[in-house]
C-alpha cells in the first residue's frame, strides 16, 4: 500500500514538475530594455544588429571584444552556448548606426594601410559618460533578474546611494577573468576608503594588510541589511570567526555581546583587542571602580590601585559572558 502511494505521488510529482519548469521557462527572464537603450543612446532610429552585425563589421579583431568573449559573460554570448540573452548591444545599445557603411572589405582595406577603421561610437550608448545610476541600470538589467541574489539589497545599499558604478570594481573588458582574487579585494576597496585603511596601521587591527582577511569578509559591497554594509548583523558578522563569545550564556554582559562595536573598533585601535578606549577607562564608563579608599579611610595602597586599575579583564576574564558563576555565585565573569 505504501509503495503504491509512493508510486502515485511520483506519478503526480513528475508531470507537475515538468509543467512547472515549462511555465518557469516561459516567464520572461529579462525586461525589454530595447526602447530604453535607444533613448539612452539618443538615437531612436538605431536598430539592433546582433553580435554578427557588430563583430562582423569591425570588432572581430578588437582585443577588447576578444577579451570580453573569454569572460563568463562572453562565454554566455558565444554562439555554441545557444544563449541569446547577452550580446554587445545588451550594454552598448543598438549598433546599426555605428556599423553603417562599414564592411569587412573596408576594414580589410584600412588594415592593409595600417588604419584602424573608425566605428561611429557616438551613436552607441556612451557608457562611462552616463550618470552612475544609469550605468548601473544597464548592468542590473541582467544582474538583478538572473537569480543573482548577491544584489538583493543593492538598491538600498550605501554604494548604490553613493553612486558607485558597478564597473568601478568590475571593469567588464579588464581581461579574461572577472573574478576578483581574494588577495586583491582589499586593495580594490582602499582606492576609495583610504582613511579606513589608515586605521589598519594602528597597533591593534585585523590582518587585512597581510591579505589574510579582506574587507568582504565583514562587508558586503553589494548592499546589506545592517548599516555600513555589514551583513546581516554585527553580532553574526563577528561571531563567524569569534564563536567563543556567541552565547547564549548563563551570565551575559547585558546586550553588550549583541553589538560588538559598543566596545570594539573593528578597523583598528591603539589598544589591545581593538579597544578604542583602554581598560579600565572603557569599563569605568558604565561601572564603578573598585575600592579607591583603604580600610579606615584615606587612599588605597599602590598595590590595590595597581590591581584594580590596570586591566579589569585580568580578573573579569570572561567578560563577554560565561556559563560559570563567580566564586560568590554571581555572574561577574571571573571564570
Amino acid at each position, binding site marked *: 500500500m505504501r509503495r503504491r502511494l509512493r508510486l502515485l505521488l511520483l506519478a503526480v510529482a513528475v508531470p507537475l514538475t515538468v509543467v512547472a519548469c515549462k511555465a518557469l521557462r516561459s*516567464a520572461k527572464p529579462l525586461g525589454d530594455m530595447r526602447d530604453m537603450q535607444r533613448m539612452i543612446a539618443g538615437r531612436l532610429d538605431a536598430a539592433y544588429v546582433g553580435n554578427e552585425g557588430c563583430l562582423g563589421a569591425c570588432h572581430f579583431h578588437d582585443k577588447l571584444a576578444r577579451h570580453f568573449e573569454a569572460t563568463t559573460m562572453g562565454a554566455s554570448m558565444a554562439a555554441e552556448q545557444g544563449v541569446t540573452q547577452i550580446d554587445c548591444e545588451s550594454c552598448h545599445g543598438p549598433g546599426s548606426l555605428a556599423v553603417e557603411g562599414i564592411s*569587412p572589405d573596408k576594414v580589410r582595406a584600412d588594415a592593409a594601410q595600417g588604419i584602424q577603421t573608425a566605428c561611429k561610437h557616438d551613436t552607441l550608448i556612451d557608457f562611462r559618460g552616463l550618470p552612475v545610476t544609469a550605468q548601473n541600470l544597464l548592468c542590473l538589467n541582467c544582474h538583478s533578474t538572473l*537569480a543573482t541574489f548577491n544584489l538583493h539589497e543593492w538598491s538600498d545599499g550605501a554604494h548604490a546611494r553613493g553612486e558607485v558604478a558597478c564597473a568601478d570594481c568590475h571593469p567588464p573588458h579588464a581581461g579574461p577573468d572577472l573574478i576578483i582574487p581574494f588577495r586583491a579585494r582589499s586593495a580594490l576597496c582602499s582606492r576609495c576608503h*583610504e582613511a579606513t585603511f589608515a586605521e589598519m596601521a594602528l597597533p591593534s587591527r585585523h590582518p587585512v594588510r597581510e591579505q589574510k582577511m579582506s574587507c568582504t569578509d565583514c562587508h558586503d559591497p553589494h548592499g546589506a541589511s545592517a548599516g555600513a554594509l555589514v551583513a546581516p548583523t554585527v553580532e553574526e558578522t563577528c561571531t563567524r570567526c569569534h564563536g567563543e563569545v556567541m552565547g*547564549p550564556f548563563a551570565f551575559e554582559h*547585558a546586550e553588550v555581546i549583541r553589538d560588538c562595536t559598543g566596545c570594539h573598533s573593528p578597523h583598528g585601535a591603539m589598544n589591545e583587542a581593538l579597544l578604542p578606549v583602554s581598560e579600565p577607562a572603557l569599563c569605568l564608563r558604565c561601572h*564603578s571602580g573598585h575600592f579607591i579608599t583603604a580600610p579606615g579611610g584615606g587612599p588605597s595602597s599602590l598595590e590595590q590601585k595597581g590591581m584594580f586599575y590596570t586591566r579589569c579583564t585580568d580578573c573579569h576574564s570572561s567578560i563577554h559572558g560565561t556559563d560559570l558563576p563567580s566564586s560568590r555565585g554571581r555572574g561577574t565573569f571571573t571564570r
Partner: protein
Amino acid sequence: VRGLVTIMMLSALALPALAEKADKGTPGAAPTTEDDFLRLWQKTSDEVQLMLHGFPELPPELNLELGFRYLEIEGAGRVREYGASKSFPVLDLHGSYYTLTQRMHAELRIDSPSDFDADVAYRFKNLFAFRGMVNGLRRNLDRFSLVDLGADQRFTITDQTRAAQPTSDTIAVQAEGRLFAPGYPAKLFVKAWVFKRKRDADMRMLGGSGYFDALDRFDVSHRLETLQTRLDVGANAHVGPVELEYAHVFDAFTRSSHVPKLAFTAGTLAGTDQLVDMVPAVTGSRDTIKLHTAATGRLVLAVTGGRESRENRETGASGTIWSGTATLRATPAERFTLGARYDVRASDWHLPATITVADSSLNLSAGPYTGVRPMSGVTQTLRTNATYRPSRLVSLLGEWSLEDKQRSNAEDWHVAKRTVRDTYGGRLMVRPSTAFELGAGYKYETVDSPAYNWDPTSSHRVTANLKVRPLAAVTASATYELVRHQRNNLQLTIPGTTVVDGAARITSHNVFATVTVVAEQTSLSIAYGYQQFDDRQTMIYQTFAFEGAGFLADRADYASQAHLVALDLSHAVSESLSVGGRGSWSSSESHLDPSLSEALAPVSLGTFSSQLIVQTRVEVYTRYAIGSSWGVRLSGGFDQITYDRSQYNPARDGKAYSVAASVQKSW
C-alpha cells in the same frame, strides 16, 4: 541536504566527461592573435562567421615563484603579529585555464606551515560553478604579565603560563558550489564555512579569594581548540515578475574536550578545583526567504524574512530570533530617488531555571546554580532617504531614521525598557570635473532613554572630503571627520544600586591626507593620518567595603591620539629592473586622568594604564626580469614596536628583520 550535496558532487564528477564531449563538438581552434584574424580574411565569409563566434580558447598560464625568507625576531613576537615567526621557504603559484566549456583560476601561496592561502575557481559552461578558498594564519599574541608591585602578602600572583610566546593558528575554509538550470535563471547552491582555531589562551583571572583586600590572582594558559562550521543550502529562481530565494543554514560551534581547572585557595570555593574558561558548544539553524523585483524598474521592492534558533549545548540556554526587512526604492522623477526600509527583529532568549553543565565529564564541583535571565526584545527601524541630482555634477542626499527598541525584562538589568533613536543626516557631493571632487556630510542623532553609557543623548557628526588632480600625474585627497557626543544622566552601576548622575562629552577628530604621483616610470604615494579622542565624563569609584554611595568624579578624562605617516615608492629603472619600497611609522598614546584626589595618591591610578606605542615598518624590494619568462626578486624588511617603559607597564618591545630571495618563472 545529503541529496543536494550528492547531486552536486555527482555533477562535478560528470563534468570533465561532458566537457570532453563538448570540446569535440567545438569548431577548430579559435584565433588568438591579430595575425590569426588577418589570415581569417582569406577564408570565405561563412567560415569567418563561424570562427568569429568561436570562443577564444586561451592557452593555459602558470606563474611560479619559489624562494626563501630569512626571519629573525628579537623580543616580543607580536612585532610581527600576523604571519610566520620563523624562516621558511616561500612558494607562490598562480595558474589559469580558459576554454568555452571549462574555466579555471587557481592561486596558492605558502609562507610557512601555518601561513598559506589558496583560491580556486572553476566553472563548467553555464551549468556549474565552484569557488573555494583556504586561508591559514599564525598570529603571535601579546603576552601580558601580572605585575607584583610590592611586598604586601595579602596580594599574590601565581604564574602558570605555558607558552613564552602565545600563538593562535587558524584555518578558514570557504567553499561555494552552484548548479545552474540550463538556459533558465535558476540554481541550487551550497556554501560551506569552516573555521578552526588552536590558541594559547593566556588568561589572567581571580583565583579565589573572596574579598578585595586579599586577592590571589592567577596567570594561566591552556590550549584552546575550537571548530566552527556553517553549511548554507538553498535555491533561487526567477519566477514571473519576481525572483525568489530560500536558504537553510546549519551552524555549529564546538571546542576541544579539555576544559582547564584552577585550584581555588580562598573564598566560598576554597579547597576545590573549579572549571574556568569553559567555552560552550553552540548549535543553531536559520531559514531565510528573499524576494525581489527587478532593480531596473521605477519601483524596486525587496523583502527578506527569517527565523534563527540557537542553543548552548552546555547549559540548555536557547534563543529564537525572527527578523524581517522590506525595502522600497522609487524613482518618481528623472533626478529624484526615494528609498524606504523597514526592519524588525524580535529575539526571545530562554535560560533553564537551574543550570547543570550538560557534559558530566567536566565534573563541575559546584552543584546546580541559577543564571541571570537574559534580555529579550523587539527592535523596529524605519529608514528613509531621498537623493536629488539637480545636475550631473551635484548630488544631494537626505536621510532620516527612527529606531524603537523594547526590552522584555529590562528591570533585571537596570536599563531602560524602551529606547528611541532619531537620526537625521544630509550629504552633498560635487564633481565639477574629473579633476575635482568635494563631499560634505552632517548627521544629527538624538536618543531618548539610552540604555548604555556609550549611547549619547545627542550626537553631531561632520564629514568632509576633497579630491583634486592639479596635474594629470598628481592626485591629492583629504578627509576629515568630527564627532561630538553629549550624554546626560549617566547610569553608573555600583554593587546594589544604580546611580543616575553626571554627564559625558566625547569629541573625536580624524584627519587623513594623501598625495600620489604617478609618472611614466615612477610612482610615489605619501600619506598622513591623525586621530584624536577625548572623553570627559563622570566616573564613580567605590569606597572600601561599599561604605556610602561612592565617590563621583565629575570630569574624569580619557584622551588618546595617534599619528601615522606612510610612504610607498616604486621605480622602473629599466624594462627589466624595478625597485621599490614602502614604510610606515605610527605613534599612539593614551592617558586616563581620574579627577579625584583619592585616585591620585600614592600614584594616579591612570599611571597603570597610560601608554605610548611606536611602530615602524620598512620594506624594500627589487625585481629583475630575465627574458620574458624568468625573474628574480629580492626584498628586505624591518619591523619595530616599542611601548612606554615604566615599572607598572612591562615592556613588550620587539624587532624583526627579514630578507627574502625568490626566483619567478612564467609559462
